[in-house]
């Protein structure tokens, strides 16, 4: 396979990671909402933890974007 083609294929495959991170972010917010609807009084106090979980899940998706960018522009 041509090296340039392999790079672009790899960058495309890295998009799977972005999709997986989307599942993760959805899980974080979905579970928060589920808990918040059961106990709305405690929801506001947990928003910090919600965003910590969101940041952790999102970072892994952004890393896959970095992998794609490195494959396209640097490698």
């Amino acid at each position: 396979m041509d090296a340039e083609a392999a790079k672009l294929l790899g960058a495309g495959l890295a998009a799977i990671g972005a999709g997986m991170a989307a599942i993760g972010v959805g899980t974080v917010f979905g579970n928060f909402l589920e808990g918040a609807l059961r106990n709305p009084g405690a929801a506001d106090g947990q928003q910090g933890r919600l965003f910590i979980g969101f940041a952790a899940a999102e970072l892994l998706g952004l890393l896959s974007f970095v992998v794609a960018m490195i494959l396209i522009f640097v490698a």
Partner: protein
Amino acid sequence: MTGANANGVAQVAAGGGRIDPMHQFEVQTIWEGFALGGRQIAFTNSAAWMVAATLALIAFMGMGLKGRLVPGRGQVMVEGFVRFIDNMLAANVGPEGRRYVPYVFSLFMFILFANVLGLLPLGVFGVHPFTFTSHFTITGVLAIMSFAIVLVVGFWRHGLHFFSLFVPHGTPVWLLPLIPLIEFVSFMVRPFSLGLRLFVAMTAGHVLLKVLAGFVINAGNAGLVTGLGVGIPSFVLMVGISALELLVAGIQAYVFALLTSLYINDAVNLH
């Protein structure tokens, strides 16, 4: 990065057109500046937009620092932001967290203004905003500042006892060789993940907006049917993504400040 390679890939990304979504991240020299230690210290568009963000921030704060008994609109906005950061540090660090409010507040407002300034549609007036938070050199320095504060505060308050951060309470003895190693790696990775998150989130959003804009322009040039069939949906999507990007601009500033306050909490209270 070779120009030809970047250009070729950009053409693939923009659907065969000549629109380069990476052009917006180019640092251009405005004023040549001076040489210092063999390096050229120039005034670039990045620096210019940093100055613009700082001036906008000063103007915004100026609206709220009059300290009236009955606050006006500006004062309510500024006090709202200050209370937001104050509550965040009080919740995450405790009563001692108030000492770090000035730093975290400056960090949050600077990143927020930078992100939002980069999204402003000033291109209509011929001024193309440069989102300097989409460069790892800038977000990396901000992250290193936060990390340095954590190290200085940690060692200053706890001395060598700060290293107990790497051994959480109740670690089983048989895990002692492993846990400090993992904790150390996760500690040292913090500045990278902090800077990388902001930089990639902003870069990805702006690339996406430019690619969609490329779809709209190329579809419009390709004729009436393509213009209506592809251009209009792309434009509607672009409006939606722009709203999402405004949200991301706020969330990323918030996450940066939140993680900084969490790391400060580690330094102040250990585990």
